[in-house]
C-alpha cells in the first residue's frame, strides 16, 4: 500500500512536470530573408540552412556556441587509413514519416549532395566514396587525407532515401531544368520540428516532432514555430516593438538603443563569423583606375602599410557602427582555427607615420584611385567606405567611391575588374585553410576564386595546398601560422572589423546568439 502511494505521488509529480514542459509555446520569429527552397541540397545560403536545420539534421552540427556536437552521428574518427573517416550513427532515429534512419540514408544523402545540380558539392569535393559498413556505420573515403572532413558536414542534411526516391527527387532542384520537385515543397527529416505549412516570403509554420530522438536532451520548449520574413528593417523592428513577433534577427544598428530601452525586450549580441576588409590589386603592373602611369602604387608594401595605419578603425567602430563591431588587424573571425590575439591586434592610427611612408615610397603627393564598395551586403557597408575615403584623403590618396548593389559589386572582384574593393568573409569550416583557399592562393580553376589582389606566391601556394592533406594537426597549425605571417607582413588586405550579430527577443526568452547567425530553436528556453 505504502509503495503504491509513493508510486502515485511520483506519478502525480511526473504528470505535473510533464504538463508544465508540454505547455504549448508558440515562437513568432522574423528575419530579413526567407529560405529559398526546402530542398536541403539546392542552395548553400544562410537563411535556407537555418530553416532546414529545424526540420533536417546533419551528421554533426554546430550548437549555439558554434561547437561541433553529435547530431545523427554519435561518434566519428579517422581510421588507421588516414583517407577514411568512420561515423557511428545514432540508433532508433525515425524520419518524420516513420521510416527508420539507417546508413543507407546517409550514403544516399551525401551522394545526392555531390550530384552536379547540388549547391553543396564543393564541401564534399575531396570525397571519393561514401560507404555503408553496417546499418549504423558509414565510411567516408577521401582522395588523400582530409583532417577537416567533420567541419564540412555541419550543413549537409540527411534525407530519407525511400521518401526522396518515391517523390522522384533523386537529383537536387535544378533551375536549368524545370526547377520543381516535391522535395522543394515538402520535407521529411529527422529534426525537432515538422513542417506544417509554408508560403514562400510569407509564413512558415513548424510543429514540434513528438517522436524526436532528442526529447529529454534538448529544452524543446517551443512547440510551434511561426517564421515570417520581414525584409524592410523599419517594419521588422516595428513588428518587434508592437509585440507581433518574439524573436528577430538582423536588428539594424540605429535601432538597437530603441529596442533595448523598450520594456520587455532585450538585444543579445555576439561576434559574427564575418570579417570586413579592403582588398588591393597588388599584382598587376599598372592599375586601371589610378592616375599613376606605368606603375602600381599598391605593389609597394610601404603604400599598403601607410594605408593600413591611415585607417582609423576605432573611429569607424564608434561613429559608423555605433559600437557594434570589433576592430581587427586580421581577416578572420576569432572562432577560426589559426586566430590569435596577436594577429587580431590592429596597428595604431598614425597619420604622420603614414605620410612619411608615402613619401618614402615616392608618393608624397598621393595618387587617385577608385574604391568599389557594395551597398546592400554588409552592415553599413557604404558608410564604412565613405569613412575610409576621408581617412585616406588625409595622406593624399584621393579615392573615388563607387558603391553598387552586391549583384554588381561581387562580379567586379571575381572578374578582377577592381583595384581596390570591400569584401566580407565568413569561415563556415572554422579553419584558416578556407580563408587561404579563397583569398590568398593564386587564382586557378580550383582555388583563389575570390583573390582579387592578383597576388601570387608559389611558395605560399604550396604551403596552402599542403594544409589539405596534413594529418599532423600540430604541424598543420604551424604551417597556418607561417602563412598568416606572410599575409600579415605583405599587408595583402586591410582588415577593418568583425561584424557583430544582434538578435532581439522578448525578455521571457533565454537564448544565446549563434556565431553563424543560425538560431536552432530546439535549444531555446523560456525563463520561468
Amino acid at each position: 500500500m505504502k509503495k503504491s502511494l509513493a508510486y502515485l505521488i511520483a506519478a502525480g509529480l511526473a504528470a505535473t512536470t510533464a504538463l508544465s514542459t508540454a505547455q504549448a509555446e508558440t515562437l513568432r520569429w522574423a528575419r530579413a530573408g526567407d529560405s529559398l527552397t526546402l530542398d536541403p541540397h539546392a542552395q548553400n545560403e544562410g537563411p535556407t540552412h537555418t530553416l532546414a536545420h529545424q526540420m533536417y539534421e546533419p551528421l554533426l552540427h554546430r550548437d549555439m556556441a558554434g561547437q561541433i556536437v553529435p547530431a545523427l552521428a554519435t561518434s566519428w574518427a579517422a581510421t588507421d587509413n588516414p583517407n577514411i573517416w568512420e561515423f557511428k550513427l545514432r540508433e532508433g532515429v525515425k524520419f518524420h514519416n516513420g521510416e527508420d534512419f539507417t546508413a543507407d540514408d546517409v550514403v544516399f544523402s551525401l551522394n545526392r549532395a555531390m550530384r552536379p545540380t547540388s549547391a553543396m558539392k564543393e564541401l564534399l569535393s575531396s570525397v571519393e566514396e561514401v560507404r555503408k559498413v553496417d546499418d549504423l556505420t558509414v565510411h567516408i573515403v577521401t582522395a588523400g587525407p582530409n583532417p577537416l572532413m567533420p567541419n564540412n558536414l555541419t550543413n549537409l542534411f540527411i534525407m530519407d532515401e525511400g521518401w526522396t526516391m518515391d517523390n522522384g527527387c533523386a537529383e537536387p532542384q535544378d533551375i536549368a531544368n524545370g526547377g520543381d520537385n516535391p522535395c522543394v515543397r515538402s520535407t521529411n527529416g529527422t529534426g525537432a520540428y515538422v513542417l506544417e505549412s509554408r508560403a514562400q516570403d510569407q509564413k512558415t509554420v513548424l510543429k514540434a516532432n513528438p517522436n524526436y530522438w532528442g526529447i529529454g536532451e534538448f529544452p524543446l520548449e517551443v512547440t510551434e514555430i511561426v517564421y515570417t520574413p520581414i525584409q524592410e528593417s523599419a517594419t521588422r523592428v516595428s513588428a518587434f516593438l508592437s509585440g507581433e513577433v518574439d524573436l528577430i534577427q538582423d536588428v539594424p544598428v540605429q535601432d538597437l538603443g530603441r529596442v533595448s530601452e523598450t520594456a520587455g525586450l532585450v538585444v543579445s549580441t555576439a561576434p559574427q563569423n564575418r570579417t570586413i576588409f579592403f582588398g588591393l590589386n597588388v599584382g598587376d603592373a599598372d592599375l586601371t583606375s589610378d592616375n599613376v602611369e606605368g606603375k602600381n602604387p599598391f605593389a609597394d608594401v610601404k603604400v599598403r602599410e601607410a594605408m593600413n595605419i591611415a585607417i582609423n578603425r576605432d573611429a569607424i567602430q564608434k561613429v559608423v557602427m555605433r559600437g557594434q563591431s570589433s576592430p581587427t588587424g586580421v581577416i578572420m573571425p576569432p572562432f577560426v582555427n589559426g586566430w590569435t590575439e596577436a594577429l587580431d591586434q590592429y596597428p595604431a592610427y598614425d597619420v604622420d607615420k603614414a605620410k612619411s611612408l608615402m613619401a618614402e615610397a615616392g608618393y608624397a603627393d598621393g595618387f587617385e584611385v577608385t574604391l568599389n564598395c557594395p551597398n546592400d551586403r554588409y552592415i553599413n557597408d557604404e558608410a564604412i567606405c565613405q569613412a575610409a575615403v576621408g581617412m585616406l584623403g588625409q595622406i593624399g590618396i584621393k579615392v573615388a567611391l563607387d558603391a553598387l548593389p552586391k549583384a554588381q559589386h561581387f562580379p567586379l572582384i571575381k572578374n578582377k575588374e577592381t583595384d581596390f574593393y570591400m569584401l566580407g568573409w565568413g569561415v563556415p569550416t572554422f579553419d584558416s585553410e578556407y580563408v587561404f583557399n579563397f583569398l590568398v592562393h593564386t587564382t586557378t580553376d580550383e582555388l583563389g576564386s575570390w583573390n582579387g589582389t592578383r597576388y601570387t606566391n608559389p611558395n605560399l601556394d604550396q604551403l596552402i595546398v599542403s594544409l589539405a592533406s596534413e594529418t599532423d594537426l600540430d604541424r598543420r597549425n604551424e604551417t597556418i601560422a607561417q602563412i598568416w605571417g606572410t599575409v600579415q607582413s605583405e599587408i595583402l588586405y586591410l582588415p577593418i572589423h568583425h561584424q557583430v550579430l544582434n538578435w532581439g527577443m522578448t525578455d521571457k526568452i533565454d537564448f544565446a546568439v549563434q556565431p553563424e547567425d543560425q538560431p536552432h530553436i530546439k535549444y531555446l528556453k523560456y525563463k520561468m
Partner: protein
Amino acid sequence: MLAFIIRRIGQALLVLLAVGFVSFAMFKFMGDPLENLLGQEATLADRAELEERLGLNDPIPVQYMQYLARAMDGNFGVSYRVGLPVGEVILSRLPATLELAALSGFLAIFFGIIFGIYTAIRRDGFIAQTIMTTSLIGVSLPTFLIGVFLIWAFAVNLGWLPSFGRGQTASVFGVELAILTWSGFKSMILPAVTLGLYQMTLIMRLVRSEMLEVLRSDYIRFARARGLGDRAIHFGHALKNTLVPVITITGLQLGSIIAFAIITETVFQWPGVGLLFINAVNFVDIPVMSAYLLLVGAIFVTINLIVDLLYFVIDPRLQADRAGGGGH
C-alpha cells in the same frame, strides 16, 4: 468599333514586344545572376557549366528570341531565386496584389470623389480648407514615409492594426483572399491606405477643379434659373460632366496602383507581385523580372483600352464624331 478594338490590340502587342526587348537589354546591367546561384565556394568550372546550361552566354537578341518562343507556349522559365516555374510563382502572388489594389483603388475613388465634390461646393468652408491642406501630405510625402508613419502610429503606439503580412486568408474557388477574413482585412487597411493616399488626393483635386469649372459654366446658370434644386444641379448636371477626365486619370492610376505597389508591398511585407519583383531585382532573377515587366505592360495596355471604350459609353459626342468620319 470592332476595327478600333482590333487596331488597339495590334498596338498593344507591339508595345509589349518593345517592353520585353528593352527590359532584356537592361538585364545585363543588373549584375550577375550566377553569383547568387552558385554561392561563394563555386569553382570556375561550375560557373561555366551553369552559364552554358542556362544559355546565359548567348547574345542578348538570341536570348530574347528564345524567351519569346517559350513565352508563346506560356512557359516563362524558372525563377532563379526560388527555383519554381515563373508563371506559377506570379499567379500565386497576383491575388494578394489585386485585392490590395482593389481596396485601395476603391478607397481612393470613393473618398476622392466625395471630398472633391465637398471641397468644390463648400469652397471656403473650414472643413474644406482643412481637407485641402492635409491632402498636401498625400501628394508630397513619399509612400515609404507614409507607410512607416502609419505603422508607427497604428501598430507600434496604438497597437490596433498589424504592421506586416497578410493575416489569415480564405479560399474562394482556389484563390486565397485575405479580405474575407477579419485578420486579413485588418492587415489590409494600412497598406491600402498607404497605396491609395496619393491617388485619392489626385482624384479629389481633379474632381474639385473640374467641378469648379463646370459650376461656372452657362448651363449650370440656366439650370439654376430653371429653379432646379442644389442636389439636382450638383449631382445630376455638374458631376456627370466632370467624369470624363476623372475616368481617364483614375484608369491610369489604377494601373499604377497594381504595377507600382512595389514600395508599399515592401514596407508592409505584403506578399504580392511587387515584393516578388523587388526580391527578383536583388537576386538578378531575370525570368521573374521579364515576366513581371510584361505583365505590367499588359495591365497598362488593357486598362488604356478599357478607358478608351468607356469614353464612348459616357460621352455620346465621341460616337457622333466617329460616325461622322472625323476621328483624330
